[in-house]
């Protein structure tokens, strides 16, 4: 994947998040790193920065001193604890006496799990440093936040993204037209990883990349299913809307919260009265909460679809 091919290897190669990179460089110089929280929107270089930091600290064989865990892949804090224990038990050889542990999507951990994590962090603080990666630092519990140096990653400026894409396109011999470039940047939404993925997908058609190609491949990759499901429900066909939902959950393997997020963005684009948008947004908020509390994602989401059916009916009645 081009996202990986063009991922910076060392802090010196990172051109964005300047201030953050400078602070990280000072850690490398001091051969010492505190526990860190890297927070910010997706595709702004959080994981990259963590990997670069490790690279610069330990040199080329850095993987030996590094462990990556993804909180949403691991089931339960026990796995995390055990893994960390094994990993952190042995000291790092070399002039840096600790290892680095990257915990991605840390904001997906329950607060109980985070409490346990905090204890683990403390226990192994001499032999391991943690870098927690999160979209919202607000979901990290206070005791962990106060033990970590905070780093806030921000959206990359559009010119940077544009330069990056142009560079990759040239390097890969992609014929990239101006309107194609614009479309890629727009659809990327400030997320560099997504933007590069779109470029690569568009390039894979073998045709010169213009806006039309870009929209077409993104359209294929983002099946209109969610929108279609919503419209089916608005038209009053609950059973088919439910079938579509089931397909998204089971066939595409999407998480309930991801589907809900997509529904949320689509609502604003729907052609329904403003009043109903507001109502539906409220119900989405409630559903969001229930997905966390409930046990069956499909039931929670189809209850939302039933609300769409109701809305559709009232709209047709001129409500």
């Amino acid at each position, binding site marked *: *994947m081009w*996202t*990986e091919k063009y991922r910076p290897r060392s802090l010196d190669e990172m051109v964005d998040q300047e201030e953050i990179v400078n602070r990280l460089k000072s850690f490398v110089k001091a051969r010492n790193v505190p526990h860190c929280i890297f927070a910010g929107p997706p595709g702004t270089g959080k*994981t990259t920065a963590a*990997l670069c930091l490790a690279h610069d600290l330990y040199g080329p064989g850095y993987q030996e001193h590094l462990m*990556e865990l*993804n*909180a*949403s*892949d691991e089931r339960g804090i026990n796995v995390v604890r055990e893994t960390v224990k094994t990993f952190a038990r042995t000291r790092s050889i070399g002039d840096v006496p600790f290892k680095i542990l990257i915990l*991605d*999507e840390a904001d997906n951990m329950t607060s109980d799990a985070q409490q346990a994590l905090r204890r683990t962090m403390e226990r192994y603080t001499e032999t391991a440093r943690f870098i927690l990666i999160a979209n919202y630092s607000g979901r990290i519990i206070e005791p962990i936040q106060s033990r970590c140096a905070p780093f806030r990653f921000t959206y990359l400026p559009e010119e940077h993204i544009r330069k990056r894409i142009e560079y990759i396109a040239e390097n890969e011999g992609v014929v990239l037209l101006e309107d194609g470039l614009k479309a890629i940047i727009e659809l990327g939404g400030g997320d560099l*990883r*997504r933007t590069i*993925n*779109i470029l*690569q*997908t568009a390039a*894979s*058609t*073998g045709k010169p990349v213009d806006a039309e190609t870009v929209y077409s*491949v993104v359209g*294929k*990759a*983002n*099946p209109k299913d969610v929108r279609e499901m919503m419209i089916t429900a608005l038209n*009053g066909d*609950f*059973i088919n809307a*439910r079938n579509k939902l*089931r397909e998204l959950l*089971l*066939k*595409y*393997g*999407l*998480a309930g919260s*991801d589907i809900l997020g997509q529904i949320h963005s689509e609502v604003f684009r729907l052609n329904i009265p403003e009043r109903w948008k507001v109502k539906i947004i409220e119900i989405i908020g409630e*559903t969001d909460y*229930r997905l966390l*509390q*409930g*046990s*069956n994602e*499909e*039931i*929670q989401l*189809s*209850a939302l*679809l*039933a*609300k769409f*059916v*109701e809305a*559709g*009916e009232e709209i047709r009645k001129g409500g």
Partner: protein
Amino acid sequence: MHLPWTLKYKPKTLSEVIGNEKAKEKILQWIKEWSRGVPEKRALLIYGPPGVGKTVAVEALANDLNMELVQSNASDYRTAEAIQRFAGRSSQYGTLFGRKRLILFDEIDGITGSADRGGLREITKVIRRARTPIILIANDPYDPRFSTLRKFCELVEFKKPTMTQIIKLLTRICSLEGIRAERDALKVIAERAEGDVRSAINDLQALAQGKDKLTFEDVAWLGRRDRKEVIFNVLRRILYSRSLTGALRAANEADVDPDMLLEWIYENIPYHVKNPKELAAVMEMLALADVYRGRATASQDWSLMRYYIDFMTAGVSASWSKKSPGWTPFKFPSRIMTMSKSKEEREMLREIGLRIGRRCHISADKAAKDVIPFLKVIFQNNPEMKDGLARWFGLNEDMVKFLSGEK
């Protein structure tokens, strides 16, 4: 005689096994191949619902052909070592006295991941090297755990015998026991058995043993096994009962697992509740019920389950006018079917997600959302890029096919 009738009237030869003529034919053909050397598929996987005569057929076959039947089932340990000990040698040679050997792995659904670690893999190994015929029996052969195993087996399905066949069998038993049975009584038993011959015989014994006469009245009271009529009745009472307590009592008195009951209600609601406003209200109740299911699980406090039941029954009942568009039959929860059908696919998706995650430093969930959709487009557009990426991610053939939409 103290023998249960299922044993007493157990078929001695294959021809006595009722129904399933095609399957029996297939088994015989396969076993005959062995006399001409090792056939292409060294194992037979017989599958079908409980009580249709799968094990009995194999035992009768061994008896018919004077083969030594060596069998292992769920009441035995079946770890890799146990399988090795049991089948390792015997799958290679015949018996001392020249009798042919037939190896039976029965009830392979019962091989568990924890207590029988490595068991399935070892069975596959044994099959691949087998020099004697091996038969496997399962209820559900499409369980993803058997996907590798299946490739090395010839599949034979045992179907439920017809009601007429079962009645015939029951009549025969009655006459041998000296019982004068009304045909209607036997019909009830056969109907209730739903193709499960064993349970039909059990029922017959429970009802008729020690009598010389079996009437329709004698059978009417017998407890039902967990069958559809029960749940239909409960559903009807929940959806259409006049009072909340009626709906609630339907669930409490029913012999139905609440989780399954929720699935039934959820499946059937849109076919009965047609008014959009009421539909939304009823679905809201199910969502609320589910919240309490989640809370009970999370807190391990099962007293919260009472709200789960309340909302799925009384809550549903109170939320609509009970004016149905007419007579609508109840449907089996299709979510359950879709889930089990798509299980393999979902596991594949997750495995792909994990492999992508390892390379791209993201979680499997994120990969499913952010990378796989693009990958699918690339795989369909560009064979060259496809090969490169497949190699780089370490995807196997099935995964590539899956992503290319060829499967």
